[in-house]
Structure formats: C-alpha cells, structure tokens
C-alpha cells in the first residue's frame, strides 16, 4: 500500500519505517497483552513532590507527562539523566506551534534543560545550497516558525547557534555521552549511534517527551535503558564475500528486525579495530537500521563496546537468526522502489551526507571526487554535488585537511549545513531528482540510492550508469 505525504510524494509500505507498525521506542511490544502486569512507577520523595505540584504547575505537568508516558511502556521508575541531550525538532513548520507554546512557558519561567543540548540540522542553508527565489519562498512558507523555534532553543538550553547537526556526537560537535550514561535523545540515527557505538543508554524518544525529560533531568526506566532491553532478539550472521556497503547492510537488518535489537557477527574480519573510519561506517549502518527499520541499538561482535565486553551473552533466550550473504543484499537492493516519474531521467543533484558526515568522511568523499574527476580530466562535476555536515565538523575539516577544502572550492562542491532529508521534504524541492549514497535519504524522500562507484560515474557524466537504466525491447 502506498500513501502520500504532506508534500504529495509517494510512500510505500514496507520501505519506510514510519509506515510500519511499531512502537517506535526501540522496543517491540508486539507480544504485549492488556492482561500483562501494568507496573505503577515508584517515585522518589523529590519526584513525588514535583508530581504533587509542590514546585509549581509547570514542573508538575512536565512530571505528569513523563510519568504517564513511562507507564504506558512499562517503566518502573525514573532514572536521573547523566549524559548529554539532543533534540530532533529543528524545523519550524506550522505543526510544531503547540509544542513551542509549551516550551515558551518554560522560557518565561527562566527554566532550562538540565544540560545544554544540540539539535538536528536546519531545513535550509541558503548560503551553501541556494535553491533559487521560488524555492526560497516555498521554504519560508513551509517553515514560518523557524525563527521562533531558534529563539526559544537559544533561551532554553541550546549549546550555541552552530549546534545544528544530526551527528552531534562527533568530537567536533562536542555532545557525546559516555558509556553507561542515561540520556533522553530523539533523532533516530543519533540514538542508534550513542547506544550502539558509545554504549550510552537512551530510548527512541518522541518530540515533546525529549524536552520534558531533559527539563526534568529524568527519564522513564524501560526499554533500552535496561540491561534486559539491550539484549538481542536477533543473531545476524554476515557472510558476504567482501565488506558490505554499510547502508545496504543496515537496510537489510532494519527491514528484518524492525525494532528488535540485533547482534551482528562476521564483521570483525572486515572492520578490524574500532577507529575513526570505522565509526563512520558504524554511523551509516546504524542510521540505516534506524530508518529502514526502527532499531535503536545494535551490537557488533568484537567491535561495539557491549559486544566486546559481553560477547554472545547479549543474545536473548529464543533469539532468531538471519543470515545475510551477497544474494540477500542483492535481493534487498533490487526491491527498492523507484519514485522518480521517469526511471531513466537524468539526475539533477547529487547528495552525500545523511546522516551528516564526519571529518574523515569529508576527507574520503573529497578523495573519491578527486580520483573520479582527474581520471577523466574534468575540472568540475557534471552536476551539482553537495556534501552535508555540521558547521563545527566543516570547520574541523577545513583545519585538518586544508588542501581538500581548497580542492572542493575549486571544483564547486559545497559543504552544506542543512538536513538533506528536510530539503527533500520541502514543497517544490521535493520534485528534484536527487541521487544519493544515503539509504536513509532514500527512505524519507524520492531520492534514489546508489553505491559509491555508481555515484562517481554520475559525477563525471551527469547521467545514470547504464546498469541502472531500464531498456525497453526494440519493438515495444
């Protein structure tokens, strides 16, 4: 079954987690029954006082919201947050007004989040990716509350005006929680990374709940905050002939396990030790499990911190097994829908960086572009190419790889600070024919997903590689 979004583009069930039946918390409840015990949350005396209104109505309502939310998902208590904060709501469209009205009350009362926070990228970056006057107008109409959102955020606890990135856990962004920290994050890809790669603990939180928890400095204790909730219900055996594309592997896993925790084996030989480059791989893999499925945490044998410590003891009793080989990855790739009106049309732009790129990934992408263009003696790509990263990461890249930054400038490739997904969900822009190596971008837009080698062919030709064209029979 397909449906259409606010901007009228098609969505297809089974390829988009937003249209998959799941609790979206990172913990499946498909076997839950109303007769199951419904624990009442045990609050500390201080928490109870807040709930009773002794600190005022605002705090009372925040506590009521968080307690009721937790009880819906089986939480037994609140935990005190120790880690950093990240909020997904970075777009000022009309729909967020009810939340802004609530947040404004806290601002007026001088209340801030318990720690400074980061947020997702803005929908627009006219300086580095100007869509032209007509589309700029559409952006303004789509996000009328952007300035209000940013003003409220600056007063309620945003670290600073450069704190807009979905990859806020990267060193340059300075918002990484530590292993074992309790956090309350939204943004599915970031949640997945801090749970899986950093070993911090957060559920997949909805907008609104994230702010309430981070104002209180408390979160309901259920799901991925618990040892039990972090056990893996799936053993994923990777048996591919070479290191798989992270965005295809993540897609296969996400589509299979939906919102259960997977324990992935067979990757140590491909990745070796955890390092900066591998963290980029794990970021992209995780973001895809979170967008093609609703995975909030994965373990990877010999690689991710909890898997290194606990090994296969992380597998839950009665776990299921899913084997991924070359044929399975081919099957997954070949089932992706093409949402372009004309399958063989020439792409208009090429996007790399959903989730936002790290410094080492910007360096890698620059190298790929340089090799592709110099190989055919071209001085500029055949179509507009955009890389996406946070401002602080971009600055870090320029500082660490000045020659790369100069080369990108020479070939006319911009590093844009916005969210490519939101760019593609904005009316008018959503009609653009975009190619990307991001399987997350594919899920949330009409962008078509290609592997890196195909992307580089597109960079030098401006056309889709022949392998991907649909050739009609001659006498058709």
């Amino acid at each position, binding site marked *: 079954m397909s*449906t259409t979004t606010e901007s009228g583009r098609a969505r297809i069930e089974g390829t988009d987690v937003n249209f998959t039946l799941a609790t*979206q918390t990172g913990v499946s*409840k498909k076997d*839950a029954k109303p007769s199951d015990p419904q624990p009442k949350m045990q609050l500390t005396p201080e928490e109870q006082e807040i709930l009773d209104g002794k600190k005022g109505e605002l705090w009372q309502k925040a506590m009521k919201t968080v307690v009721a939310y937790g009880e819906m998902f089986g939480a037994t208590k609140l935990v005190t947050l120790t880690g950093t904060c990240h909020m997904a709501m970075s777009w000022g*469209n009309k*729909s967020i007004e009810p*939340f802004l009205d609530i947040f404004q009350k806290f601002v007026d009362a001088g209340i801030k989040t318990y720690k400074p926070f980061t947020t997702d990228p803005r929908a627009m970056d006219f300086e580095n990716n100007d869509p032209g006057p007509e589309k700029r107008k559409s952006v303004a109409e789509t996000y009328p509350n952007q300035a209000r959102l940013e003003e409220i955020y600056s007063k309620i606890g945003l670290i600073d005006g450069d704190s807009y990135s979905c990859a806020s856990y990267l060193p340059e962004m300075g918002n990484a929680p530590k292993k074992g920290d309790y956090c309350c994050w939204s943004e599915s890809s970031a949640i997945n990374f801090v749970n899986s790669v950093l070993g911090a603990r957060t559920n997949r939180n909805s907008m609104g*709940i994230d702010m309430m928890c981070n104002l209180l400095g408390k979160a309901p204790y259920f799901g991925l905050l618990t040892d039990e909730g972090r056990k893996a219900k799936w053993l994923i055996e990777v048996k591919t002939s070479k290191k798989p594309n992270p965005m295809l592997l993540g897609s296969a896993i996400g589509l299979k396990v939906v919102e259960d925790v997977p324990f992935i084996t067979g990757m140590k030989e491909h990745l070796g030790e955890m390092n900066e480059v591998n963290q980029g791989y794990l970021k992209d893999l995780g973001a895809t499990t979170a967008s093609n499925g609703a995975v909030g945490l994965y373990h990877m044998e010999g690689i991710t911190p909890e898997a290194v410590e606990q090994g296969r003891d992380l597998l839950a009793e009665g776990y299921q097994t899913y084997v991924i080989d070359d044929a399975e990855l081919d099957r997954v790739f070949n089932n992706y829908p093409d949402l372009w009106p004309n399958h063989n049309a020439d792409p208009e732009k090429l996007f790399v960086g959903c989730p936002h790129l790290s410094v080492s990934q910007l360096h890698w992408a620059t190298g790929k572009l340089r090799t592709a263009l110099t190989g055919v003696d071209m001085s500029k790509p055949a179509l507009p190419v955009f890389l996406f990263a946070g401002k602080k990461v971009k600055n870090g890249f320029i500082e660490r790889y000045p020659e790369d930054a100069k080369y990108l400038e020479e070939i006319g490739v911009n590093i844009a600070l916005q969210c490519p997904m939101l760019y593609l969900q904005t009316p008018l822009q959503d009609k653009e024919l975009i190619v990307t190596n991001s399987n997350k971008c594919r899920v949330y837009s009409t962008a078509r997903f290609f592997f890196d080698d195909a992307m580089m062919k597109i960079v030098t030709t401006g056309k889709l590689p022949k392998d991907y064209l649909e050739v009609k029979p001659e006498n058709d």
Partner: protein
Amino acid sequence: MTKTFKGRPLLPGNVEETAEVSHYGFSTSAVYVEVVFKDTNSGVCKDGDNKELYGRDLSGKIVCTPQTIGSSSGACMFMAICEKDIQPKAFLFANHIDSLASCGLLMADIWLGKRIVTVDMLGDEFLDAVKTGNKVKVFEDGTVEVED
C-alpha cells in the same frame, strides 16, 4: 448483537459514539494535514490513501485502528486538533500504542486539558469485528462494546 473486548485504558473515560474504522495505520499527520497547513477547522480525514477514512469527518467519533503511523510531527497534530475542538472522542488501538500517539495524546490531555479517551491492545479480533457506523461504548476500565 453486542461483542465485548478488553483493552488497556491509557486515558480512561466513558464515551459512546459511532465507529470510524481504519484497518491501515492511522497516519495522523496525513489525516490532519490541512488542519495545520491550511488552518482549517475540519476534522475530515485528508489522507488520500486511507481508503476507509478519506473524506469522513472524524470529529467526535470513535476511531478504531491498529495504531498510528507516519511523520514524527504526528504528536503535534493531536494537540492541534484538540486546540480546535475537532478531535475524535476516542482512539481505540488494536496494537500497543506507539510513542508518537502516546506523546501527542498525553500532552493534549495534560497541557491542554483535552482528553481523547484512549484504549490500546484490543487485539486483531476487535478490528475484525468493528465496522464503520457501529455504535461503540467505551468504559473507563478499558472494556469496549461493539453493537451491530
């Protein structure tokens, strides 16, 4: 003939109204897209791909569906329809509630004082039994009666 089902009362209450049934997930942001983007005061379903509910006025009715799906702005939509008083009387979910619906329904209840009675985990049998136009009674203990 009356059929009785028992779910989990999340936002309890006693209400009685006719059912509006969607066997497909209820895409809150798509259903109420015009409420937010065109500032309409209508509770008519605008999700063109929800063949069961499209064009039907859900205001004051009892919506029966597996769970909500769709954009993360769905939570805001519950608040928006409650502010405009065009909300359904109740949401009856066959599955466990999802985080977007729970956030939106709770915040509307707590911050706006507008309760949409909510029961979840009513099971697939409930959705097999209930038809659009059936009279439905919801009780505060999570019992749901469906009359043919």
